[in-house]
């Protein structure tokens, strides 16, 4: 029975209260462990299309008559347009339309960040559109930008109110401490740099209907935002995304380019593509914002943490949201006295967007590095310190639906024990060490999400749901779940996704929520079909478990239709993911160069659907984490605010040559409270502890406290120098 409930919905660590119609989830979970198909490695069902180049991405679309767009974006972080003349652009060959701030809400004459869109032109070819852009006469009055996050906080230039979260008595907790450690950590701006840039092709298929082909993580979010923006009934916006080339949190919304394409398509009555160039991608497509974290921990001499405190400044940019950088400090340890204040600084810099565990990647770097500084001061083993402060119950209230962090610590122990052997391999100039860090994050998903399934007389099944696979392997996981429940071979299941006109509502591919949101709906749909198959078997005098194709072979054109919905999350419980990573590093103390030599990862994300795809996701998260820790940084000129790293030459992504040995495993214990699957998401957990584990390994190797990302040679040499000076100076009492 459909049931109306008021519930909290979590996406990327942000909660909102929503009304939901949920259907009861009446299926029992499968017993723990690998099944025939679920829990066994499967290669991607769409790997061949992607590998051979047959898969058609938004970037590959060439609709008949399609025009191409170039967007004039502000080269200044803060300016006012004093003169704008589009006529010279319109006079050029091949140009069909040009629009400016008077024509479209998303275009502005008052840019407040570099990359803010001012005008756009469309033409027969991209080269013509770019030439036309250069012909636009646009002049600016350049204004002084606000770039310093601390200055923004002082001036009260904030996005939203400062967020204060307090429990217990922080001051008393500090007074009870035998040891107090204070440290300031800084993290940099990093860029998603999905290989397929942000882009959309918009085509009006009637006066009040549009097709939106878009590289997106959220088909239904695009449908709703475009229908709002264009004032169209929701289902008059059809959103299509069959393949997309990466998102990492940056492709959850329509952004400016979709509305630019829609407006130009309306004016020209042609399909219009608006695709960001790589340099636009690195300017105006979102970023993980920089943070400043001023942290304090107090502990008794036995290692019991008595107080945790932090002032967090998120350098959000011109718009966006102030992510939960304080989350790990609030959630990871059993500390009674915690006080955090988080500011979202509004700056003349490009807006942030969610980037793979927003806030928690940054906050875990600070907290888990602080923990090791405390361990060093107390002379307590860092792993032991974490066990001593293990939270049996959620410190902010409520029980965990499941938590296997102690099991993660247990499995990490042999890798942690390698540190004696690793350190022994140090030389005079190359020091080696081992560090660890814990991970906490959401990842439980939630309703609503739906799936349909149809089984034909050949015994083959098609799962139909309007979700998207952004490269995480969701399509494969859904095929596995359906095949398992139906009792048919994996090759006999196809998954139809990627089109809001051809399937029911499906969850966003973000927040490690896709598998835990979609998987239970797909299983429920398959179970609905399976029940009907068994009824037919009974009427045919066949065994209940007779092969599906034998049961249905009399159906001819008749089909068995199943439908399924995602049930509710357990009420009053925290559904979270956990994990531990152990890093081994080498540091050249003369040059400051750091190499990561090995990373061990163990994560607790409930039942694992596809161990092969899961291991790929862990590796990918760790490699992004290594880039975040050692090489990636979007730089801007501190005086003018102009961006300096807009190419893939200047912005240093990890390459295959930067990859260490990676050893990963999953606890693979179904969460007994969570849905008919017991599965959580794995997209984000693996990137969360990597930076802190590397920083802690560097401390283990050298005694130096690195407190700033990326750990460039300059930062490494600074930390080494500071460490030497500290040891040379007489101890302060």
């Amino acid at each position: 029975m459909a049931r109306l409930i008021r519930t909290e919905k979590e996406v990327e660590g942000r909660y909102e209260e929503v009304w939901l119609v949920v259907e009861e989830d009446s299926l029992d979970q499968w017993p723990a462990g690998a099944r025939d198909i679920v829990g066994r490695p499967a290669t991607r069902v769409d790997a061949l299309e992607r590998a051979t180049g047959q898969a058609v991405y938004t970037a590959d679309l060439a609709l008949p008559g399609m025009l191409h767009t170039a967007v004039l974006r502000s080269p200044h972080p803060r300016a006012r347009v004093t003169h704008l003349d589009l006529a010279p652009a319109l006079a050029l060959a091949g140009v069909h339309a040009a629009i400016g701030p008077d024509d479209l809400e998303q275009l502005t004459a008052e840019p407040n960040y570099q990359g803010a869109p001012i005008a756009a032109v469309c033409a027969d070819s991209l080269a013509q559109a770019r030439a036309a852009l250069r012909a636009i006469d646009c002049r600016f009055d350049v204004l002084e930008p606000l770039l310093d996050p601390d200055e923004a906080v002082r001036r009260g230039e904030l996005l939203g109110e400062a967020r204060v979260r307090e429990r217990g008595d922080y001051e008393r907790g500090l007074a009870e401490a035998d040891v107090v450690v204070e440290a300031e950590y800084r993290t940099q701006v990093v860029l998603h740099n999905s290989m397929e840039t942000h882009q959309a092709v918009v085509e009006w298929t009637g006066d009040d209907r549009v097709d939106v082909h878009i590289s997106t993580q959220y088909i239904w979010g695009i449908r709703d935002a475009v229908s709002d923006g264009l004032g169209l009934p929701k289902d008059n916006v059809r959103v299509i995304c069959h393949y997309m080339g990466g998102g990492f949190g940056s492709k959850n919304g329509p952004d400016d380019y979709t509305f630019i394409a829609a407006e130009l398509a309306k004016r020209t009555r042609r399909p219009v593509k608006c695709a960001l160039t790589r340099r636009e991608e690195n300017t105006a497509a979102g970023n993980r914002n920089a943070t400043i974290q001023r942290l304090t921990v107090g502990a008794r001499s036995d290692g019991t943490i008595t107080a945790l405190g932090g002032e967090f400044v998120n350098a959000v940019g011109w718009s966006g949201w102030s992510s939960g950088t304080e989350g790990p400090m609030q959630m990871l340890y059993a500390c009674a006295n915690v006080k955090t204040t988080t500011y979202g600084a509004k700056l003349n810099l490009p807006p942030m967007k969610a980037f793979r565990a927003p806030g928690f990647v940054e906050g875990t770097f600070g907290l888990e590095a602080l923990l090791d500084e405390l361990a060093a001061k107390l002379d307590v083993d860092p792993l032991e310190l974490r066990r001593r402060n293990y939270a049996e119950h959620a410190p902010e209230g409520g029980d965990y639906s499941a938590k296997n962090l102690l099991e993660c610590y247990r499995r990490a122990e042999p890798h942690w024990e390698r540190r004696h052997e690793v350190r022994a391999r140090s030389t005079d100039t190359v020091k080696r060490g081992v560090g660890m860090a814990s991970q906490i994050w959401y990842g439980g998903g939630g309703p609503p999400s739906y799936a349909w399934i149809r089984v034909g007389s050949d015994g083959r099944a098609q799962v139909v749901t309007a979700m998207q696979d952004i490269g995480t392997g969701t399509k494969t996981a859904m095929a596995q779940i359906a095949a398992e429940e139906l009792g048919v071979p994996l090759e006999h299941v196809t998954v139809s996704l990627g089109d809001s006109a051809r399937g029911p509502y499906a969850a966003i591919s973000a927040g490690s929520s896709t598998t835990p949101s979609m998987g239970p709906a797909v299983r429920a749909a398959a179970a609905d079909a399976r029940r009907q198959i068994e009824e037919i078997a009974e009427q045919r005098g066949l065994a209940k478990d007779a092969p599906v194709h034998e049961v249905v072979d009399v159906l001819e054109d008749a089909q068995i239709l199943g439908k399924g919905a995602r049930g509710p999350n357990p009420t009053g419980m925290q559904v979270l993911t956990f994990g531990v990573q152990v890093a081994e590093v080498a540091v050249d103390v003369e040059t400051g160069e750091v190499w990561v030599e090995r990373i061990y990862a163990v994560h607790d994300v409930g039942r694992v659907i596809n161990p092969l795809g899961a291991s790929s996701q862990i590796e990918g998260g760790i490699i992004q984490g290594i880039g975040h820790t050692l090489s990636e940084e979007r730089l801007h000129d501190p005086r003018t605010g102009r961006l300096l790293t807009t190419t893939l030459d200047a912005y240093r992504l990890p390459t295959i040559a930067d990859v260490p040995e990676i050893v990963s495993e999953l606890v693979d214990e179904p969460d007994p409270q969570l849905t008919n699957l017991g599965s959580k998401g794995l997209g984000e957990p693996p990137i969360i502890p990597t930076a802190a584990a590397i920083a802690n390994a560097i401390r283990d190797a050298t005694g130096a406290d690195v407190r700033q990302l990326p750990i460039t040679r300059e930062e490494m040499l600074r930390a080494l120098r500071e460490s030497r000076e500290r040891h040379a100076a007489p101890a302060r009492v």
Partner: protein
Amino acid sequence: MKLNVNDHQYDVHAAVGTTLAEALRDELALTGTKIACAEGHCGACTVLVDGEPVLSCITLVHSVENASVTTIEGLREHRMIDSFVRNDALQCGFCTPGQIVSAVALVETNPAPSTEEIRHAMAGNLCRCGAYPKIEEAVRTWRD
């Protein structure tokens, strides 16, 4: 101009300044060759010109008029494809055709490359999803 791609001879009408990647994608609809940066930094557009890996986004089409071009579409039967699939050496797949073309160029001259040789030959092909460990494995075990 005449353009030889995957052993087919095409007549291509390309303006001076057209890149090979643009000609392949826009004129011949061979969209397996991806453009991810359009300035020679990422390797997604890699094709073979007379067997050598080339960045087609910064190669002018008129400069390869007398050469033999091989794109991912011409490598469909190559065992490297199956190796990438088998090893899960791709995630979103956008960089994958370029990865495979670079890998083919390597193993056609060096069928049993060492880890260092693989890393050297593939370091110009960026993968933001981080499929690198499995790409390395796919190239190492391509004949299995």
